[in-house]
């Protein structure tokens, strides 16, 4: 018999960015809120210098991530293959514990552009009929940029975003990103200081006629106090960002931006080591009654709640919906169902350049440090003549220069021994990268479902990912590789190496690519093609709300966190305005 807890107004599954923000909003509304976190508690004490500065523990052994044993995923490239489980994380890094991915993220904080939120409308208006591949499944978000703008703005003030506006209320500002959507306010803080790599990139792209701007960084440039009274300290460029908790209060995270304020509230509590196994459906077929979880002592516990917020990672959100039997699972053969549909990823590539004449001091680095161009965004040029829809941003970052991951040797070097050491010493500090991060369209045969073969220790099936790279997206990234080669020519390194995908390549999960996994529980205005409505309310259970990048109908070139947070505020403000007084569907199914 499960332990029955006292009913609460709101239960939150997962205490990362979205869970924390929901906590603030729903306690503001006067409701009793309980958050359940599968992983361990993480407080500032866990991030005290020098604890996080441990590349082996966090950068290599991935100490802040979920356990593949309990929360693994199986991967295959198409329906003809048998999916195999990831036994250690390679291609993406799903976070665990309080703070979630928000504790170990890099800190690059973007907004979606107006076009990225309405790709279907954009494609219909822009591309020749029949140009887009038949198996591409394109959808609008169902919410517009103008509707999200105040929420982007709020989250950027919560995170102390550092950078340079490029479009302030329609006015294009020199030095910012002219391709971004209009902002109602400047960035809360100025950009991080420039490194030499930033300067070289800026000069080269300007001479090519493009529009470089500083990476929008949630590693902050100055001491900052946010609207919750939470504080951030100036980033010192220690370089422990992606995969690490910040040791300097400089990276926006639930810990630095929300949680101490939330924990002061009497109507909020949270429980760690609580692994939610099911969202419980009500007999009425229209609502959920709460959640069932296994606590740290192995007890099965039922937590009744009037409202449930599913706030875990993309893959965990989809899996829990499938395990709970809420919403119709997607079937790619019959093209019916919605849960697991439109799973997308991100298309990346890079070059590494060696300059004997430049000394870059790579020990000075920050995840959000860098310069970028958006000149090749999906709506910034005519992509049809190049044979694709989509786009990428191209950037440089003096990214983490750890002793293990940051060491570079020339091609052909042995991978160990005295010659490797000589090469590593000679070239240390002389390398610069340029990368591309690109959109990924959704396709009918890229999706998530439950694996028929592999189960977790509780006997529940693992999530299965069926995913491959498609010709449209490969053509897009090949185009970006050519643009990067132009920058390389401009910069004139002694040599450079490339890592780009090309048409014909298949998805290779053996290397890190990105943790920007999106879709599977997408938002929209049509219940036949979306799991949640435009307010992130589940079509089949009006008191269940699903937050996160699982809402994205297809992935954009920009990093997801800003859009995830803005959608969270968009949803919860609607809930506070309309749902609390009058619980029920916020959109009709027809």
């Amino acid at each position, binding site marked *: 018999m499960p332990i029955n807890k006292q009913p609460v107004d709101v239960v939150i599954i997962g205490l990362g960015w979205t869970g924390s923000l929901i906590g603030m909003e729903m306690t503001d509304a006067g409701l009793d809120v309980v958050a359940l976190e599968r992983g361990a508690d993480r407080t500032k004490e866990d991030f005290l*210098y020098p604890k996080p500065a441990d590349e082996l523990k966090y950068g290599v052994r991935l100490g802040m991530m979920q356990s593949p044993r309990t929360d693994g995923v199986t991967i295959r490239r198409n329906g003809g293959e048998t999916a195999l489980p990831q*036994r250690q994380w390679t291609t993406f890094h799903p976070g665990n514990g309080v703070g979630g991915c928000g504790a170990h993220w890099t800190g690059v904080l973007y907004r979606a552009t107006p076009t990225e939120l309405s790709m279907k409308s954009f494609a219909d208006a822009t591309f020749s009929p029949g140009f887009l591949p038949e198996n591409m499944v394109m959808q609008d978000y169902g919410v517009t940029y103008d509707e999200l703008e105040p929420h982007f703005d709020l989250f950027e003030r919560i995170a102390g975003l550092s950078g340079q506006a490029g479009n302030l209320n329609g006015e294009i500002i020199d030095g910012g990103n002219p391709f971004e959507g209009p902002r109602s306010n400047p960035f809360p803080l100025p950009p991080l200081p420039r490194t030499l790599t930033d300067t070289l990139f800026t000069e080269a792209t300007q001479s090519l006629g493009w529009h470089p701007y500083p990476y929008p960084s949630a590693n902050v440039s100055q001491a900052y106090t946010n609207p919750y009274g939470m504080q951030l300290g100036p980033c010192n460029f220690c370089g422990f960002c992606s995969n690490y908790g910040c040791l300097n209060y400089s990276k926006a995270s639930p810990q630095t931006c929300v949680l101490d304020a939330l924990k002061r509230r009497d109507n909020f509590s949270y429980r760690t080591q609580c692994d939610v196994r099911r969202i419980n459906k009500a007999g009425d077929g229209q609502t959920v009654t709460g959640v069932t979880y296994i606590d740290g002592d192995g007890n099965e516990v039922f937590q009744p709640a009037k409202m449930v917020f599913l706030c875990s990672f993309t893959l965990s959100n989809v899996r829990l919906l499938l395990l709970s039997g809420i919403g119709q699972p997607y079937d790619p053969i019959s093209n019916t169902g919605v849960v697991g549909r439109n799973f997308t990823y991100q298309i990346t590539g890079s070059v590494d350049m060696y300059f004997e004449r430049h000394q870059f001091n790579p020990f000075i680095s920050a995840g959000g440090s860098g310069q970028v161009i958006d000149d090749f965004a999906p709506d910034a040029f005519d992509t049809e003549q190049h044979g694709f829809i989509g786009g990428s941003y191209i950037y440089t970052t003096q990214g983490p220069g750890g002793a293990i991951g940051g060491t570079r040797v020339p091609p052909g070097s042995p991978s160990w021994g005295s010659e490797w050491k000589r090469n590593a010493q000679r070239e240390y500090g002389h390398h610069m990268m340029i990368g591309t991060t690109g959109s990924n369209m959704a396709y009918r045969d890229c999706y998530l479902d439950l694996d028929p073969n592999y189960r977790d220790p509780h006997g529940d099936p693992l999530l299965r990912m069926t995913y491959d790279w498609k010709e449209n997206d490969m053509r897009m990234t090949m185009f970006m590789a050519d643009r990067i080669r132009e920058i390389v020519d401009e910069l004139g390194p002694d040599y450079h190496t490339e890592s780009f995908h090309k048409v014909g390549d298949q998805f290779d999960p053996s290397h890190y690519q990105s943790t920007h996994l999106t879709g599977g529980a997408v938002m929209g205005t049509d219940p036949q093609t979306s799991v949640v409505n435009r307010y992130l309310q589940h079509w089949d259970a009006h008191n269940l709300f699903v937050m996160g990048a699982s809402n994205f109908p297809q992935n954009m070139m920009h990093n997801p966190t800003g859009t995830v947070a803005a959608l969270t505020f968009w949803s919860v403000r609607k809930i506070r305005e309309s749902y609390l007084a009058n619980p029920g569907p916020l959109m009709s199914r027809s």
Partner: protein
Amino acid sequence: MSRSWSQVSVGMLAMGLVSVALPAVAQEHGSSDDAQIERGAYLARAGDCVACHTAPGGTPFAGGLAIDSPFGAIYSTNITPDKDHGIGNYSRDQFAAAVRQGVRADGANLYPAMPYPAYAKVSDEDIDALYAYFMHGVEPVSEQPTKTDLSFPFNQRWGIALWDWFFTDDPTTATAPGGEDPVARGRYLVEGLGHCGSCHTPRGLAYQSKALDDSDSDFLSGANLNGWLAPALRGGDGVAGMGISDWSEEEIVEYLATGRNAHAAVGGEMTSVIEHSTSHLSDDDLQAIAAYLKTLPSVESDTQHAFDATADSDTEQQLTGATDLSEGAELYLNSCNACHFANGKGAPRVFPSLVGNSLINADDPSGLIHTILAGAELPSTPKAPERLMMPGFAWRMSDEEVANLATFLRQGWGNQAPGVSADQVAAVRSELDPEETHSSQPDPVYAEPNASEQE
């Protein structure tokens, strides 16, 4: 756990004692109006009664906290309205006599660990409100805290009457000044309920505060509190860099509301005072306190060394040049510079400035040593909820290293305090409470690999 005389509150943090809400009993008794009870609750905050009258982990106001005095442990009493163990049988006038004169209902004298020499200034009207709160706003707790049992001659409470005759003023019973005269209001709060002088005014041979009001320049001129500097609060012109004399009124208000400002971050005993008392005061009252403190000319104090504001770029040049570094400077670069920076100025409200910092320039370096060894944690307050932490370095620095680092801090950027010895560090280290440290020591077992890697 025990605490020192007028230094009783660090443990409150660990107890997580945050809110002292009005319970429902107010309506049941019905003899005082709610506004007066609420006013009394606010004044009890201003007097920080809860700090002493609560045992670690205990119910607020139920007493039992051990307060170390030079004469032995004095235990605080139960001041809930319980009729057997608390003050439920106290009349309003008996309550007033206890608060303002240190006289119990049975006529015996209270030990002056109770700051009645300061509370003597509390007005009748405020006593009425406090009485209403303690009778009707606090739940009775039927618990008898440990009774104070000092050895002879200090168990002879009649002797205190003599002490009182020498060292206390006659109670004044004026109505409390209101907000129309901020300086008078500030004086009333600082000298009276705030009992700031209990820590910040030096004590004399008989353990009496050398001054109870601003007629004497010893008042709030800074004191050493078991190794920690309770800095001078005389905020006016006079001696530059002494205590808070360089702070603006706004910065004083910000510090009292949040425990942090552009100059400093709270440490030591004051942490609890911020968390439980001053951060709950109204903006007007904090403004009044600041306005009043700025009227007191700063004076020389042997508790803190002067600071030379003209010398501050030399240390920065030495650190940025990073050649011929002393061991202390090298330790600074390796362990401190990331937050406090080469200019020592840190970042406003997040990383406190070390330049002219009163704790660093204190004559007694124990507080500084304690901070380096144990780290520090800011309190969570309504306006600044974040518990920012400084890591403790006890696990990775030897006594010699901490001494070198502390000496560097005390002589860098124009700071001019004497050097620190390894013996002084050892003495502080031997007293460290592991519960109060914020260690940054990585887990002893090297790493917890993903479960997959264990398989």
